[in-house]
């Protein structure tokens, strides 16, 4: 997919208009996963706007975003950065062989108390 197609896809499936962003950085101030991401929520917004999507797709941050919606809740401009991060993650996972987690990994992770919910959500987040 060309970069402009990627931008279009991300805009469409996220429903986010990055131009609404006023670059206040509240999303990154609110983010509990900040230190686990090399690109931070506010950067996702500006990098999607400027078309630097490949870099985002290759970043670890798309798998460490907790989808806790703190950025969505607190954004004064209703930009919803979490939806952008999700859209970049989807664009990545939907490519052949890009699954971030495979079923064969699971047995090693499982412990006595791990709820099904954790596995289900991880699969939803990490593979297509």
């Amino acid at each position: 997919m060309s970069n402009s197609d990627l931008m279009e896809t991300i805009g469409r499936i996220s429903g986010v208009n990055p131009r609404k962003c006023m670059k206040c950085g509240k999303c990154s101030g609110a983010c509990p996963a900040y230190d686990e991401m090399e690109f931070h929520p506010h950067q996702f917004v500006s990098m999607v706007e400027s078309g630097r999507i490949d870099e985002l797709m290759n970043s670890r941050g798309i798998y460490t975003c907790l989808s806790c919606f703190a950025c969505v809740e607190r954004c004064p401009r209703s930009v919803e950065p979490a939806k952008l991060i999700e859209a970049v993650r989807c664009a990545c996972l939907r490519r052949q062989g890009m699954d971030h987690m495979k079923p064969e990994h699971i047995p090693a992770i499982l412990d006595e108390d791990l709820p099904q919910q954790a596995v289900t959500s991880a699969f939803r987040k990490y593979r297509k």
Partner: protein
Amino acid sequence: MTFSYFPGCTLKTKGKELDRCGRESAAALGFELQELAQWQCCGAVYPMARDEIATRLSSVRALAAARDEGRELVTLCSACHHVIKRVNGDMKKDPEIRDKVNRYLQLEKPYAGETNVLHYLEVLRDRVGFGEVAKKVTHPLTGRKIGAYYGCLLLRPSKELGFDDPENPRILEDFIRAIGAEPVVYGMRNECCGGYTTIENKDYAKKNVAKIMANAKACGAEALITACPLCMYNLKENSEDGLPVYYFTELLAEALGLKEADA
């Protein structure tokens, strides 16, 4: 008062206590949770991408089933509540998603968000009333200092969930008061515990949990309650010397005197 009930995958397995105590307390409080005849896992995370249709279907099946029964749909698990309520919102407000889902499901009667989705706590607050709950309490948890742990899924995004004030919620605090205990308000109660990342990166989840625990302890909490099995797991497993954590329904059952009964 009878509600359709969506237990969700975890409440049938690792989170049995949340479910069992919830149902028993419901009976004691005078309402019934009628489990949907057929339900499938909601998927545990809400599909934010607008073109994800398949991942919305199981929620819509549950919603349509509740509609056909003519009842409100109650969930206990925070994640199920989050997913089903938001998918319901999509079905109500997003014509494109609604149309695609309905074409896919071929229901007898297309679904358009008619069902009202309630969390068990909302039932306690809005249908039963915490005042009534307090009246039914036989074994008040007097003197116990309990911190409510909301996490993220119950509250946010508040525009869609409309559950409580997302930054200074009080529904669990009111609940704690209703069962005779003393609520401890602490700032981290609506911050994320690390969620599903515990599968991949335990240390990361531990860091989040440590902050929450430290804050709850510093504010004087002696135990935490939650409505989410994943939060429960994270708070318990990923904390070295953390506070005890309970499902809120466990304490509800205790306060209603249901604990000895089955002991």
